[in-house]
Structures are given as structure tokens and as C-alpha cells.
């Protein structure tokens, strides 16, 4: 999803230090390395994907973000990125706190479970929604903590972090989310992108 990469890149200042948590096959890292900063690291749980990253010349550590972020000292990076994986963690609250400890800022993207298609799927079919960004069945999904854009905004108040930028992505169109349009963005946004700070 190149649009997502571009949005993330636009948020990041040039030559800052970046950690991509759950960096997958390193495509976002590659994109940022070429366009923003060579000072970029990744952490990835899959051995296979770590190998892919190494083959791309990226500096990646095999590890589990839920446990292995603790090895990084406070404020190790200017930006820590968590792309579409918050929902897969056992304890998302802890992960966010760790992201904000390790990074001065964090960029979190979430597949929006409040999207109208998802809602309709459950309403009409009465089965767990399966969409392009959420392709798994309920019994084999790694996504155990799905949330909506609205949930995430609320979450910031509950656990106490500041949202500096919130964007919704819909059909490659990007728009700002604010209090007055939250209802609609939560209904039509496929992806929420948030820049957060402690």
C-alpha cells in the first residue's frame, strides 16, 4: 500500500532516526531509507521476513515487539512506526507505552474496524467480517484486538497519550480527522494513521 508509505514519509522529518516495529518484508523501511533517512532499523518476528530484509540490505533484528522493545533505552529513536499490527498484540496498551518510551514520537496505523463494509458484513451476514485489509477467518486471524478509529481516539484519553496528527485513508485519498468529522471518518476510513506523543 504505497499511499500509506507516502503518508508516513510525509510525517517524518528528514534524517531522523526511525524504528519500524513489525517491519515485515522491509518495504516501508526501503521506501523511507530512500526518501527520508538512512538511519532506520526494523524489528520483525518472522525469520523468513528478517532474511528478506537482510537481502535488501536493511538492518533488522529478529524479535517480538511485545517483549523485545525493552532492550532499547528511552528515546532511542525520533520515530517509532507500528504499521497495522497494534491489533495483533496481547497487550496493546503496553506496546503503545513501550513505543512512546523507545521513540520520541510514534506513528501508528490501524485497519479501521468501524468501516461501513465491516459493519455491514456483521449486520447482514451475521459472520465475522472479512475484507481486503482483514482477510482472515475468525479462527485463524492474528488480529485479536481489533479497534476502530474512534476506539483509538478514545484509547488516547484512557491511557493518556497525545494525538498530534490523525489521518484517515479512503481509496488512496487522505483526510484529516477531527472531532466534528470523527463519525464519518470512522465510517468511511479504511485506515487510520496517527502521530502520537507521550
Amino acid at each position, binding site marked *: 500500500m504505497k499511499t500509506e508509505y507516502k503518508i508516513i514519509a510525509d510525517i517524518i522529518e528528514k534524517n531522523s*532516526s526511525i524504528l519500524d516495529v513489525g517491519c515485515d518484508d522491509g518495504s516501508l523501511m526501503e521506501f523511507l531509507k530512500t526518501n527520508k533517512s538512512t538511519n532506520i*532499523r526494523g524489528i520483525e518476528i518472522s*525469520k523468513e521476513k*528478517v*532474511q528478506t530484509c*537482510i*537481502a*535488501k*540490505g*536493511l*538492518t*533488522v*533484528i*529478529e*524479535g517480538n515487539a511485545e517483549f523485545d522493545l525493552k*532492550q*532499547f*533505552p528511552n528515546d*532511542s529513536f525520533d520515530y517509532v512506526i507500528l504499521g497495522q499490527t497494534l491489533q495483533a498484540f496481547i497487550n496493546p496498551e503496553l506496546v503503545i507505552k513501550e513505543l512512546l518510551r523507545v521513540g520520541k514520537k510514534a506513528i501508528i496505523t490501524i485497519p479501521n474496524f468501524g468501516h461501513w463494509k465491516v459493519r455491514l458484513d456483521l449486520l447482514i451476514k451475521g459472520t465475522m467480517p472479512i475484507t481486503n485489509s482483514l482477510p482472515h477467518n475468525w479462527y485463524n486471524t492474528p488480529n485479536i484486538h481489533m479497534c476502530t478509529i474512534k476506539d483509538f481516539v478514545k484509547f488516547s484519553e484512557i491511557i493518556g497519550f497525545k494525538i498530534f496528527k490523525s489521518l484517515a485513508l479512503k481509496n488512496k485519498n487522505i483526510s484529516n480527522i477531527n472531532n466534528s468529522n470523527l463519525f464519518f471518518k470512522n465510517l468511511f476510513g479504511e485506515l487510520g494513521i496517527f502521530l502520537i506523543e507521550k
Partner: protein
Amino acid sequence: MNIKENIKTLMIEKPLKLDCGQTISNFPLAYETFGTLNENKDNAILVCHALTGDQFVTGINPITKKDGWWTYAVGPNKSIDTNKYFVICANVIGGCMGSFGPSHENPKTKKIYGTDFPVITINDMVNAQVNLLDFFGIDKLFSVVGGSMGGMQVLQFVSNFPNKARTAIPIACTSNHSAQNIAFNELGRQAITADHNWLDGNYNLKNTVPDKGLAVARMAAHITYLSKKGLQEKFGRKLQERDDLKFGFDADFQIESYLRHQGSVFVDRFDANSYLYITRAMDYFDLVKKFNGNLSNAFKNTKTKFFVISFTSDWLYPTQENKEIVIALNAIKANVGFVEIESDKGHDSFLLDVPDFLKAVKNFLDKSFVEKL
């Protein structure tokens, strides 16, 4: 065997102060090179060997007439591609393949050193090897690479010379020897010194060798290099050239026969006193203690890009110990990558045909080499 004929040595005149307090000078360092040093002298890779390795990394070892110990990883078009890189490997001091060691003659007494040889450390080994860089006029290595004790040398090298290596690959190693590591080494040393032919280390004088003790040491160590699963799959309870148990103490089982073979071929190529000295060097290795309990400080000033590799079935230097190196490097924001390779082949995985491992090393080196400085 006549070692000297086939061995390149660098005479190191410069005095080297050892950790034990003694100073040595005018000592030989045996080495071998593979590939060609380029004009910029920026394609050199220092390979550090493990406990029983030597400078004959790849190709046919002229002494044993067998393949070099890292033939899977080093050679033309291999992980460490000798078409591209200039590979240097030195026999460690204390060793028995031409470098200054306990089987050398003590110029003062005109007798073989034996246990009069000074106790050496990983730090001493590395400080001896760095002379090769000066010899070849290499300002900065492209990489320093090694597994097991070789990995310890890699860590020590970067710690001692933070600006002398662009990249470093410590493989299946540790920043300090665990009690279990020391215990296994002590078992090996006890086997050697208990052999009545050891003669307090003076077996050379009587033209004998403590081959039984050295073989047992090797057999015990060899078990630690393999995994339970690997052993079970390869040998299980299979019998050795017989249909049934013989109700005696011959090698009934294939695993027994295999270990005896490993022991017997080892004594032909390795010196018992060197085994004592090198295992001691490994036991003494403690980069954590050296830096007052903070391993990060060992790498404080380095710009070296690290790639740490461990293996799932390695219980001698398990993943957790390798990860501690990664953690220490992350704590100082060093450039470090890490992967644990899936393999049933135990600690020995780094020496064997483990495609994921070989691919990772190749990719890391080749990508790093073209990276802008």
C-alpha cells in the same frame, strides 16, 4: 607431517604485552589468505577460527589434505566470496598450526615450552592478529567474521579497534563463558592431564602424546557441538556393523564408533597442550566483566555495523547469550541486525551446509559492501 613447509608466517617483532603480564616479541603468526586484495585495500575480511580451527579456511588444507573447516561458507561465489573479498585468517597464538604456541621451543631453555608457555587470552589472540592488517597495509577491514571462539575474537576485535572494521559478524558465540561452558572445557582438560602420557605437559621430550586423553576431550566436546535431535536422527540406537548387541564394551552403537573416530582423527592434527591453552583462553573470556558489568561499554566508540547470528538448536552458545550482545549494542544505538537460524545441527551449524545461514551471511556482506560509506 611437516608443518613448516606449507605454512606462511609473519614474524611479529613488536612486543606484545599479554594479559597474564608477560611480554612476547619476535614470535611467529601463521596465516593464510584467499582471494585478492583490491587497489583501495577495502575488501579484506578477517576470519577468526574456533577452538580447533586453523588458518586453512577453505580449499584443501595442505596439512590434513582435507577440505578447509569453512569450505561451505568461504570460496568463490560462496557466502564469503573470494572472487570479491580478500580473506585473511591467522592461526591463533597458543595454537598448533604454526603460530607461537606451547609446542614451540623456548629460546631460553632450548626446550619445548609445554606448560611453561604463557597463558593467553582472546584479547591476546586479537592483538597478535591485528599485526596482519599493518603487514598488508589495510587501514580498515571490510569485515571481521567468526563463529564460536571466532565470534569471541570478533567481539574483542571491535572492542579493541573500534575503527578497524566496517562490519562484524559474531556467530553462535557469547560475551562471556558460562559455568556450563567452563565445565565442559575443564572436562576436556582433565581428560588430557589424566593421560599418563601427558607428563606434566612434557610429552614431546619423551616422544609420546597423550592421545587417549586428547581423544576423550574431543569426544566430550563433540557432543556439545551437536543437538540431541540431530544425534537421534543421525544415529538413534543403530548398531555398528553388527546385528545384535555383543554384551561387551566394544563400540556396539554407531554413535560410539562415530565419537571414537572423531577422537582418533583429532589427535593426528591437534596438540594436547594447545587444547589446554585455547580452552583456557575461552574460559577467561569475559567482555562483560572487563567493562565493569556493562557490555555496551565494550563497543562504546564503534561505528561498526554488526550482524549477530545464532542457531535454534545450539545449546552451547544459545540464542539468549547471542541476544545479550544485540541488547548491549542496541543500548548504545549501534547498528546491529540479528537473526536466529532454524537448524537441528546444534552449535556446529555454522560450519555446515545450512542454507538459511549461508544466505544470510552472503546477503549481509554483499549488501553492506556496496553501501555508501
